[in-house]
């Protein structure tokens, strides 16, 4: 298990990360969310030993992360980087060897990865000749070919098309099933919801939300309703506690002041004994994120 205890980082007078506590268990995925400059990348940099924490500790199975441990880390930086003049094979083998993988094994694995991710091109092609999408796949291969025990992904979905996004998600889930510790940051809230077991939200370095995703969502109450019904907005607005009604797809999205208001809405829309769609849910992660970032509460 990887544990971050009271982790604090100051740059001069600026507090980048303030007293963060987190546990990263094997086979678990933690999503780190927050606005730009919230402290996500700084947290990763401390975990990777790029910078030293001002206070607090980071441990892996009870001991500080050693150089040997680092060989079991797969890291995908926010700004992707590959040697443009190297071939795909030279590139991937170099990174794999640095991780302690045997060259022959990496060479063999690379072929199957190229097929698996459907990379257009040969292993002997120079990276500069690949399309952006294929270069991204090569970057992903270089990150995961060694089957890392700890995977740190900084904005992994940035710049990816939907196909590559799905490939990336599949790989994260596969490594999770294999017992890897995975932490990633993202502004793609649907991606975070799909992948994360646990969530940690930072605001100006402070942890504002932390815990299991469903628990966090439920803690905000089921204050949202998705409704498909012939009942008019005017009829709905007669119910006290309805804050807002917005059209959403074939139906409407209703915000409630309190989850108990849902019962009254249901009574109204089901008075004829039939309602096509009534779904009362906690706020989406996207909604929680926007509310937390703007400083308000979800329930406001």
């Amino acid at each position, binding site marked *: 298990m990887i544990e971050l205890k009271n982790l604090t980082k100051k740059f001069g007078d600026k507090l980048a990360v303030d007293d963060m506590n987190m546990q990263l268990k094997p086979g678990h995925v933690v999503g780190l969310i927050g606005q730009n400059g919230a402290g996500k990348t700084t947290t990763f*940099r401390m975990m*990777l*030993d*790029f*910078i030293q924490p001002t206070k607090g500790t980071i441990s892996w199975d009870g001991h500080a992360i050693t*150089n*040997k441990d*680092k*060989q079991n*880390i797969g*890291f995908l*930086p926010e*700004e*992707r*980087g*590959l*040697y*443009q*003049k*190297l071939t795909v094979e030279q590139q991937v083998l*170099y*990174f794999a*060897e*640095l*991780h*302690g993988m045997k060259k022959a094994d990496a060479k063999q694995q690379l072929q199957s990865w190229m097929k698996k991710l459907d990379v257009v091109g040969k292993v002997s092609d120079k990276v500069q000749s690949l399309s952006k999408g294929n270069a991204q796949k090569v970057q992903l291969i*270089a990150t995961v070919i060694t089957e890392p025990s700890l995977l*740190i992904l900084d904005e992994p979905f940035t710049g990816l098309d939907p196909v590559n996004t799905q490939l990336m998600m599949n790989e994260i889930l596969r490594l999770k099933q294999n017992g890897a510790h995975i932490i990633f940051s993202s502004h793609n809230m649907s991606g975070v919801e799909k992948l994360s077991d646990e969530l940690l939200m930072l605001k100006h370095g402070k942890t504002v939300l932390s815990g299991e995703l469903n628990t966090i969502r439920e803690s905000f109450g089921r204050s949202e309703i998705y409704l498909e019904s012939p009942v008019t907005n005017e009829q709905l607005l007669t119910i006290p506690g309805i804050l807002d009604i917005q059209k959403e797809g074939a139906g409407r999205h209703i915000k409630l002041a309190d989850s108990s208001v849902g019962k009254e809405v249901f009574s109204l829309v089901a008075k004829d004994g039939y309602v096509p769609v009534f779904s009362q849910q906690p706020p989406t992660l996207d909604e929680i994120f926007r509310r937390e970032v703007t400083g308000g509460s979800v329930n406001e």
Partner: protein
Amino acid sequence: MSKRQLYLVARQTYLNRFKTFGFWSVVLAPLLVILVIFGITWVIDATQSHEQPTVAVVANRPLDNYLKQNKTVKAKFKNVDSLATAKANLKKDKIDGYLTSKENSYALKMSVDAENLSETTLQVTLDQYHMLSQATKMHLTPNQLNSLVTKPDFQTSVYNTSGKSSQGGQATNQANQLLSAALGIFIFIFLSAYVGMISQEIANEKSSRIMEILLAVTSPGIQFFGKLLGIAGLAITHGLIYFVVVGVTAIFFGDNEFVKTLKGLLTGVDAKFAIMTGFLTLIGIFLYMVVTAIVSAMVNDLSQVQQAVAPISYFSMIGYILTFVLNGQPHNAFINALSYVPFISQTLMPARLGLQYANMTDAFIALALELIVLIFLARYGLRVYKRNVLTYNDGNITKAALLSLKGLFSKKQ
């Protein structure tokens, strides 16, 4: 520090650069320069006209006979009776020039498009002829004449500070000057090339964010020393290539005239000088590489590399320029002192050594100083590198450099 990772980084750096045009152009440039000089000399020699000019000797049959028998002057001589005949022949292109003589003077008039005639050789030959004529008039015996014209023996040698004498004289001095100037040029070129390589290597990885991936699995120390070792390996390979080329040339082309000329230029160079120069140069290059690695870690993108590395290149020119003013100034205290200073000594000390203004002890001191500074720089340079290699400033390299020095020597790093 993982030795395996250190080896991998060094190997990667070495192989990446070994395959580049940049490396091979640096290696081959001096060889190409020599080959071009050799080629041009050969072409000129092969295409030059071997026809000899015809010179008329005006009304002086003894001189005409002497010149014909002497054969030193590469020309055909013929006697004519008068100046008018000579002029007429010259006008009709029957001769290329004519030589007139009076009591104590000789005059040569050549056509503008005549084949070249060595005036120096003609002058020497005429001197000898004049001397013989005068001796005959004075009724001197052949022995008396011989004794009169025999030159005294005159040898020059250099007594250097080690107390040993070596062959000297103008020829050796010229060879040494040439050697020191050539060394200065080549060392400067090599330095610039390796400074460029290490800066490109680090700045490329930093600006493309590959450095973050590399440092996630290794450490700054491994990256810093691995890259330096890789480029140092290239410098050593470079030296070995020259060693092999020189060896092969000496063994298989030793009798070639051009090679003989080169050998002649290097007569004053002994093995000690060559080895010491090699070490001073190599350690000098390492020193510049370490400084460049430190500075390159401060840049944000490749466009800043030139700006960051330019002061280093300018500094390396100091030693190079001083090798040109060194000649004839064996006791210049300023130049002598600078020849021990690391970053300058790699060009200046070999030049002083070549001109025999310094001895091996001086060179050893310069080498030791280079090594001490290299160790110091490697140790504290790594700290500066660590601080900067993943820091992206707002483009101000000077600010980054000054910030790097803050608390650099504190024990807690």
